[in-house]
């Protein structure tokens, strides 16, 4: 197995729950798609050309502040479980990691990671620069990617068209090549059945929503990834401001929905979040989907102050560490399919027990009221 301790924070600073609005927003990601002018785009490349691309990017990156000390991964030389691990940790996309059993990883696929920034090489585009931070942090995340883009652009000739802007393999990314996304937890809007209206509204004003793992992934645990739909015709600043404004609005709607639930359905809400906590604390088998839904309930309870002594950081970590490759890594061996739900439940119990032990024994008891 790969040694993720090479990464100072395991590549998981985005789970810290330290960023702004962490009670509603898990993380913020900004990525830029870039291609090298002198190379064919990815569908036309052969392995030799992708090797050359990887070598050029690595050489250029070694000279930058943003990636000079980067940990490098040859994704194409990693075992399946290691690729899954990186994918579960949100460090590489599905396209690059090829995390399904039997799927082929593209020769030349590479990853460079330093702090909260990384570059995927030979993904759908030659370079996918990205930064990922905890909480609602569009400015800081964008700043980090923009700096990296400048540094790399001084050393690598990017494909740029005077009218269309940055050129990409898929025309949906042409122009700025920018996709900013905010992973936000919206159980209040789901419970009050407002969510469909809001999502429909967002798609009408140029936003799109996806699940926890981006394009093509399902919405689980009431976690929605909101991002800009178009990349051309607006400046980076306009795209970010527009997204930021709408995310803030969605956060306000979510807060309002939670207050309504708290006011009008106190007993039902309390029952729901404590049941979720109880199941996570004591269940002996847990599917991934069930875990995500229960974590959503507990997260809501913690966010509303109904469940004390459980940290958002622990809940965020559980999002990642209850996934199959992480459970296997924790055991130091591969797990049979039927073992996974058992190991998952054991892991969740252990984490919550430690959390309660660390923060005080009252976590098991609801605050006394009335």
């Amino acid at each position: 197995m790969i040694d993720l301790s090479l990464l100072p924070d395991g590549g998981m600073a985005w789970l810290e729950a330290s960023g702004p609005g962490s009670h509603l927003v898990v993380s913020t990601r900004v990525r830029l798609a870039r291609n090298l002018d002198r190379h064919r785009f990815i569908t036309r490349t052969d392995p030799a050309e992708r090797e050359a691309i990887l070598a050029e990017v690595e050489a250029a990156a070694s000279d930058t502040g943003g990636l000079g000390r980067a940990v490098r991964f040859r994704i194409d030389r990693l075992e399946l479980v290691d690729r899954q691990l990186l994918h579960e940790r949100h460090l590489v996309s599905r396209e690059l990691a090829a995390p399904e059993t039997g799927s082929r990883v593209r020769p030349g696929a590479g990853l460079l990671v330093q702090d909260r920034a990384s570059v995927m090489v030979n993904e759908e585009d030659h370079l996918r620069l990205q930064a990922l931070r905890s909480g609602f942090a569009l400015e800081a995340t964008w700043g980090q990617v923009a700096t990296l883009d400048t540094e790399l652009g001084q050393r690598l000739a990017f494909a740029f068209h005077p009218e269309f802007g940055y050129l990409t393999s898929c025309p949906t990314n042409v122009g700025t090549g920018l996709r900013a996304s905010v992973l936000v937890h919206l159980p209040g809007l789901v419970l009050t059945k407002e969510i469909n209206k809001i999502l429909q509204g967002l798609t009408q004003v140029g936003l799109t929503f996806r699940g926890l793992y981006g394009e093509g992934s399902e919405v689980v645990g009431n976690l929605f990834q909101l991002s800009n739909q178009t990349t051309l015709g607006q400046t980076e600043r306009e795209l970010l401001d527009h997204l930021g404004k709408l995310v803030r609005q969605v956060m306000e709607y979510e807060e309002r929905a939670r207050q309504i639930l708290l006011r009008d359905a106190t007993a039902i809400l309390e029952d729901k979040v404590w049941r979720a906590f109880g199941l996570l604390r004591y269940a002996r088998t847990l599917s991934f989907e069930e875990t995500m839904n229960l974590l959503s309930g507990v997260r809501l309870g913690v966010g509303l102050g109904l469940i004390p002594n459980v940290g958002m950081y622990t809940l965020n970590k559980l999002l990642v560490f209850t996934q199959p490759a992480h459970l296997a890594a924790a055991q130091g061996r591969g797990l049979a399919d039927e073992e996974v739900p058992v190991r998952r439940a054991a892991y969740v119990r252990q984490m919550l027990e430690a959390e309660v032990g660390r923060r005080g024994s009252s976590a098991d008891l609801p605050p006394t009221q009335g």
Partner: protein
Amino acid sequence: MKCNACGEREGVVSLTQIVEGDVRTVSLCAQCAAEKGIETGLGLSETPLGGFLAALGESADPDAPLSAALEAGCPSCGATLRDFRETGRVGCAECYRAFDAPLRELLRRLHGSTHHTGMRYTGTDLPRATATPDGGARELRDQLRRAIESEQFELAAELRDRLRERE
């Protein structure tokens, strides 16, 4: 992912539903989706890109030399519009010039604009790696380090010799 209805065929369309306050996403195969009256179109014709790609192969005028246009290759990478229709991916930067008209139309449909107003790329302002004063020794050293890391010792020996010649 298998179809959630029949559990046999591969799902081709995913539906996000809200049931009693829980958001669920289900995957359906084309057959089960059709039975439930859900238009899949294999997810293509509903999106601007999919609709555009599908329309690339159709022509109102049977005499139009469209198939010839579909087969004309980009002078730089050889990719054709037919390739683009099949993959949805452009072959190289030059393709955007070679197929200016259809791609311009597509960009307009996708983004509502063809005019980039964001940051302008000003080109590299540092000497390229191959033009470095040390004649590429730095790149060779990098290749050598990578060869050693990946245990390609024959390649490493060759690179070491080339470095020695240069230094």
